[in-house]
């Protein structure tokens, strides 16, 4: 019946560069996000390998202090903004419309605009390496190091302008997906039948919409301090360096949940499928996700305990931080209870999900330790904190994302990622990750500070540093195994059935890969796990053909506007005349966009 549907006359062809540049299809945009995310993930991982190689032995001589500063700063920026966030965006672009039974997002062209703007910001930020002016003051860019007096190079301008562009991209995407989830659900897909992944994306989108503007203002103030001689963060001119810390962490802490919640959503889809049981405590997980979001806005100052906030703020932020452990714990117990008593299939996707559970729990526990100001004061700026963030971000977020890759690859591309290679990758990642980051707990307690480019031989830090470096090479090999699995899948013929895992979600109701219009017939949702409900009640999807499926035509205006914004950003780093030209181009793009027919 797929051939019987006459599609829109202006339907884009499926191949060719122009088709990709002008696409407004959420699946293609998801793929673009995924490819960019994986590439930047690998580059950022390479930066980490250089760091670990330098630290493998005392008094390392591979890189100098300045390069080292650039490496750890760019490693964090690229992993967070250009690696993990876009990989999460790849999943929500692909999956949200499929999971809620929609044919596309609410605003397909805005979706393309958010991707191209993301790419503009990413290229602008990473191009700082080419000019040898990569940001080097940490991803949090504490004032007054960002001021002109301390950073003469353009590196902090790259930082400010790059992150503003990335923020614009994320805001646009978030607005789009909030509206999509509210308005584009299929018949019967009520709020409490939404897959947990969609719920988590809904929460993430709100977090971004409400936290990014605060960061944007902080970045504008950095830019003004550096280029227009204001003194927002410069204490010599009456400014307040702590203001930046507040603005940054009001964004920065919700950002942590922006990174982890998509993976929590992925795990919530993977575990029930492979335990062959519905998720345990659905509403508890949903409400836990929401309370994490609300509390996430009330904990930012726990990053600032050592700035001397005074006893009352310290107590309040300590309490709210510990309180976040409660909804997180609820989720972890619900996932364990989901597996309990199930007949579990240990596929690669499920292994990564279970690995997520174990490693994220370790990271969560060390996180609760930091919630106590006296302990935090001791651990601040030590490797203990490095261990913590990598357990939640690598053991948590990244494991969840790889679980998603192995789980949905057959749906996305009609081909399986090799299970054998996947298991090799999983064990390389699992063991490598623990070898790399667990010793950092010991190093931190022994007093090794973060962000030092070398250390003396007689401090007793050699052994654990060697172990950590060894582990990081295992991670690199694991990543090569993943790339080989992707290449191998690419070379095979599509052979994936519609629902290879016997999963309950709506995304498995359509073909693998899905047709351009997602669903031949918009499905009707009768229960929380619709495909299991249909299977158990012998319901066959209605076969009413729709005579005409409207798909939005491709458009090059999103790309044009993003190029305008990129030129605008370049102008902010060179001369404002170029900026003006970029803004003119963006305005031309908006003009064409508005007048462009979409029917």
């Amino acid at each position: 019946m797929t051939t019987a549907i006459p599609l829109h006359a202006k339907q884009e062809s499926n191949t060719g560069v122009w088709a990709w540049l002008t696409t407004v299809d959420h699946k293609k945009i998801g793929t673009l996000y995924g490819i960019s995310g994986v590439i930047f993930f690998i580059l950022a991982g390479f930066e980490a390998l250089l760091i670990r190689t330098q630290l493998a032995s005392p008094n390392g001589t591979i890189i100098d202090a300045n390069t080292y500063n650039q490496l750890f700063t760019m490693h964090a920026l690229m992993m967070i903004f250009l690696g993990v966030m876009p990989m999460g965006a790849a999943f929500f672009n692909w999956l949200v419309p499929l999971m809620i039974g929609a044919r596309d997002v609410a605003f397909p062209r805005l979706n393309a605009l958010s991707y191209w703007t993301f790419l503009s910001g990413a290229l602008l930020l990473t191009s700082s390496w080419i000019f040898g002016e990569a940001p080097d003051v940490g991803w949090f860019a504490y004032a007054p190091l960002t001021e002109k007096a301390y950073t003469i190079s353009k590196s902090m301008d790259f930082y400010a302008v790059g992150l503003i562009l990335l923020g614009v991209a994320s805001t646009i995407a978030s607005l789009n997906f909030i509206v999509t989830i509210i308005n584009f659900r299929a018949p019967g897909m009520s709020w409490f039948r939404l897959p947990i992944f969609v719920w988590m994306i809904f929460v993430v989108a709100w977090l971004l919409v409400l936290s990014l503007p605060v960061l944007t203002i902080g970045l504008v103030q950095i830019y003004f301090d550096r280029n227009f001689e204001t003194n927002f963060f410069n204490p010599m001119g009456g400014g307040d360096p702590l203001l930046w810390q507040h603005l940054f962490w009001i964004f920065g802490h919700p950002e942590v949940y922006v990174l982890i919640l998509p993976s929590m959503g992925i795990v919530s889809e993977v575990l029930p499928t492979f335990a062959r049981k519905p998720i345990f405590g659905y509403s508890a997980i949903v409400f836990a996700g929401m309370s994490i979001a609300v509390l996430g806005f009330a904990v930012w100052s726990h990053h600032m305990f050592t700035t001397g906030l005074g006893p009352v703020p310290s107590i309040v932020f300590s309490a709210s931080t510990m309180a976040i452990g409660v909804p997180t714990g609820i989720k972890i117990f619900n996932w364990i209870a989901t597996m309990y008593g199930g007949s579990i299939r240990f596929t690669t996707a499920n292994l990564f999900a279970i690995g997520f559970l174990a490693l994220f729990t370790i990271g969560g526990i060390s996180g609760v330790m930091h919630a106590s100001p006296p302990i935090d004061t001791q651990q601040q700026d030590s490797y203990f904190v490095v261990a913590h963030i990598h357990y939640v971000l690598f053991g948590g977020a990244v494991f969840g994302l790889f679980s998603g890759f192995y789980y949905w690859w057959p749906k996305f591309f009609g081909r399986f990622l090799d299970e054998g290679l996947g298991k090799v990758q999983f064990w390389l990642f699992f063991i490598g990750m623990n070898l790399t980051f667990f010793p950092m707990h010991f190093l931190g307690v022994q007093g090794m500070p973060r962000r030092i480019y070398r250390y003396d031989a007689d401090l007793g830090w050699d052994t654990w540093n060697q172990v950590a470096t060894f582990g990081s090479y295992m991670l690199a090999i694991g990543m090569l195994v993943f790339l080989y699995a992707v290449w191998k899948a690419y070379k095979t013929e599509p052979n994936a059935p519609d629902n290879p895992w016997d999963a309950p979600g709506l995304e498995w109701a359509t073909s693998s890969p899905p047709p351009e219009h997602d669903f031949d017939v918009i499905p009707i949702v009768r229960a929380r796990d619709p495909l299991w409900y249909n299977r158990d009640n012998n319901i066959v999807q209605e076969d009413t053909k729709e005579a005409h499926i409207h798909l939005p035509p491709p458009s090059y205006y999103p790309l044009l506007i993003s190029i305008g914004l990129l030129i605008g950003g370049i102008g902010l780093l060179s001369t404002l005349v170029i900026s003006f030209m970029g803004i003119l181009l963006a305005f031309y793009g908006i003009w064409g966009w508005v007048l462009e027919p979409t029917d």
Partner: protein
Amino acid sequence: MSEQIHSVTGIDSRKLLMWIFLASDCLFFGALISTYLIFKGNIPNPPYPTDRIVNGEFFHGLLNIPLTSASTFVLLMSSVAMVLAVYGAQNNNLKMMKGWLLSTIVLGIAFLLFQVYEFRHFLHEGLGLSTNQFGASFYLMTGFHGVHVGIGVIILISLLFGSFRRNSLGKETGFHIETAGLYWHFVDIVWIIIFTIVYLMPY
């Protein structure tokens, strides 16, 4: 933006997008206003926002409250005009819509001219971005507000020119004007807060 019109909730997706964007913009101005408030009252060097005697020397204050009250009145009236334009559009009264839309635009531009005058006056009095924290936070906050008003004026002018192309109201015109109105009123409300904090609260 005429994307798909599809809605489970009955709320048009584009209007919903505008509401959520305005929620985001609240935090944008929230950060700017917070910055201003943090530096409020901590101005080490002239020119000062209000009259002040330092070491026996009298410094004339910069803020001209009657003038800015007038510009605030102008902006408030533009919101009234906006409401009437939306009313005209929704009641199929093209002439009324065009007239009040034009009034909104004129009042919006008048507000911007007041702001240009004020900025020039302050600069003339010696208040630059780097002079003191009042200058930096004031220019940044009111400047971003001015940019919002300017974008609003551009949107309204586009809608007005769009309405010249036909003799009757299109089926979407009322909706576009109403959504633009949401933005316009929001920017107006933000100004009321800024006006209260900068001009009316004692410094």
